[in-house]
């Protein structure tokens, strides 16, 4: 068998595992990979980013918009430490991601060599798993295992550290036929009793309420959920990360302290809260959950609650659980009345409209939704001033909401939008950030221009509400133009809607600065 370089084995493995797009930046210890890259250019598309943090967010956005794993390639030391924020973001929100880092040659490990950092140690607490490859022949096995771990069970980022000598020495390329991880259990065995217990508990409850989290965001579930909700007339809520899982016209909005009006009303009323793939105890205040009758369903045992006897915990994948609910719950009538639910929806619309008339940013989110309609991927990051305004955008597919949740990463939205565009090039992609957040990763505008992406970036330029910060944003229009993008500057006035309408559908990289 012909011997290949470690760097060639790297590409062969990725290609055989179905990877077609990687995001990355070259550097000392991965130069061999970039040396051989031209001969793999037709097989694997490498997107050159300008910062490793942005590369991880791009891979993250790529993954959220498509469901495929995102891949990052970078070198050791500063590059690897730059990825930590992005890895952490993905870990918090269970996004499948593979981070491939270069490392100093194995004989120099731990010697404070040039650009050395202990990647395994640094990322141990922010990855699902990480591993160091010591021999070239082990590379295919390590990459396939890492990808399998990242993309199954409760998904998450996995890091593979590749020392330089592994990449420059030769070996035969043998991809193991099957991933064998005897200790890794991707699909938990669920005792039948817990499912029948759940059925009994549901049939006894008068006003059940379903809450779906990111753990339920699978294409198999989307259809089954809407069938189930229609069949039994049970109201449902979603978390920030699963906005769009339930169609906006059927959903009662987002759960949580910053959630919708109807969510808190429903929480008050319900006598059986069913949380599917959602870390509900992290989202809701303890006070709200006190003495609540709950069923917690999750693939990850750590989310379950075994201490409270009132709660039923089921360790099962959401796909199997929703399938079970749809097929096994016989005739059952809840005590939710049609008029109550309808009234709640109307009241919710009223409250939302009130918020929109008051809050300029909420207004922009709603207007975007009205102008753009479905099939638009919206990417946004955490805002310091107003939390969770993304809920004012009416999502109809969870794959269209690309938002940083648990980690609340500033500067996430824009690079994630670039990644999302690569995964679904036909869809329109819009990123919306506040001025301070946009500045975290604004250098990536050059990537969007280089790759000739059609991307709309909305930057909300406002003075900080904190007077002590003395924050003043740059002129984003001039900034974008200096990169070579088309840019527009509007102030928030009566013409804002028509101005947005005129500019939102332009081609190329468009930056729209809205001055509040």
């Amino acid at each position: 068998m012909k011997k290949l370089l470690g760097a060639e084995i790297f590409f062969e493995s990725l290609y055989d595992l179905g990877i077609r797009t990687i995001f990355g930046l070259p550097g000392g210890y991965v130069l061999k990979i970039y040396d051989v890259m031209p001969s793999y250019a037709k097989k694997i598309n490498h997107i050159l980013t300008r910062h490793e943090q942005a590369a991880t967010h791009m891979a993250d956005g790529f993954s959220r918009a498509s469901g495929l794993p995102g891949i990052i390639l970078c070198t050791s030391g500063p590059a690897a430490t730059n990825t930590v924020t992005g890895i952490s973001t993905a870990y918090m929100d269970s996004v499948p991601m593979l981070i491939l880092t270069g490392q100093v040659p194995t004989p120099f490990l731990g010697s404070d060599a040039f650009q050395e950092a202990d990647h395994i140690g640094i990322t141990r607490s922010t990855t699902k798993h990480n591993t160091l490859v010591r021999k070239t022949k082990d590379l295919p096995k390590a990459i396939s295992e890492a990808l399998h771990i990242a993309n199954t069970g409760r998904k998450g980022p996995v890091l593979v550290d590749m020392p330089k000598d592994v990449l420059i020495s030769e070996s035969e390329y043998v991809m193991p036929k099957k991933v064998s991880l005897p200790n890794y259990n991707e699909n938990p065995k669920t005792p039948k009793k817990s499912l029948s217990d759940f059925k009994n508990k549901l049939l006894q409850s008068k006003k059940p309420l379903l809450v779906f989290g990111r753990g339920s965001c699978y294409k198999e579930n989307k259809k089954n959920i809407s069938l189930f909700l229609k069949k039994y007339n049970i109201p449902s809520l979603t978390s920030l990360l699963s906005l769009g899982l339930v169609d906006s016209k059927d959903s009662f909005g987002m759960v949580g302290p910053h959630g919708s009006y109807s969510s808190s009303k429903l929480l008050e009323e319900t006598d059986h809260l069913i949380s599917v793939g959602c870390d509900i105890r992290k989202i809701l205040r303890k006070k709200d959950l006190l003495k609540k009758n709950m069923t917690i369903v999750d693939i990850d045992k750590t989310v379950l609650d075994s201490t409270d006897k009132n709660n039923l915990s089921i360790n099962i994948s959401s796909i199997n659980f929703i399938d079970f609910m749809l097929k096994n719950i016989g005739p059952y009538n809840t005590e939710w009345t049609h008029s109550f639910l309808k009234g709640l929806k109307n009241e919710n619309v009223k409250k939302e409209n009130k918020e929109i008339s008051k809050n300029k940013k909420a207004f922009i989110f709603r207007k975007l939704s009205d102008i753009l309609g479905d099939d638009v991927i919206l990417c946004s990051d955490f805002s310091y001033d107003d939390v969770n305004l993304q809920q004012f955008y009416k999502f109809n597919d969870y794959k269209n909401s690309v938002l940083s949740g648990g980690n609340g990463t500033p500067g996430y939205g824009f690079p994630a939008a670039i990644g999302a565009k690569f995964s679904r090039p036909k869809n329109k992609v819009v990123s919306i950030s506040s001025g301070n957040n946009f500045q975290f990763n604004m250098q990536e505008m050059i990537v969007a221009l280089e790759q000739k992406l059609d991307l709309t970036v909305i930057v909300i330029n406002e003075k900080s509400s904190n007077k002590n910060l003395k924050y003043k944003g740059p002129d984003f229009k001039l900034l974008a133009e200096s990169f070579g993008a088309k840019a527009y500057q509007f102030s928030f006035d009566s013409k804002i809607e028509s101005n947005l309408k005129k500019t939102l559908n332009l081609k190329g990289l468009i930056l729209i600065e809205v001055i509040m």
Partner: protein
Amino acid sequence: MRHIISILVDNEPGVLARVSGLFTARGFNIESLCVAETENPSYSRLTLVTSGEDWIIDQIIKRFENMINVIKVVDLSESESIQRELLIARVIPTKTSRSEVLRVADIFRSNVIDVGPKSYALELTGTKDKLEAFVEILRPLGLKEVTRTGLVSIAREKKK
């Protein structure tokens, strides 16, 4: 509450750091820790003793179970398992206490594993309490230094 957690892990570098990292992340102290290869050389057994609220320990155990390198985790309760520790003590007795040291060693069924012109090295296996009692009695007799393994534990056979 005190917990004895027995963890079967892959015998690989970095696994100990992964396990102990979970304790550091929560600000917990590990009271004792003992790691060694098992009858199967590809696995190691890690026995650790810690104290904490039950629900936090429960969380930590679930996290252990999620780790790729962890095969099995058991929270051994003190009544349903046997625990042993090993101690080696160096004693430099005075002229008058030389025979007394040997007598004490005899009472505790401790072995003399090294003898020099000035000192003895004594070995003792037993429960934590027994080892502590031994140390206290040796202290006035010229105890110089003590080294102890962590606690190791195995579950008792289930009563029918």
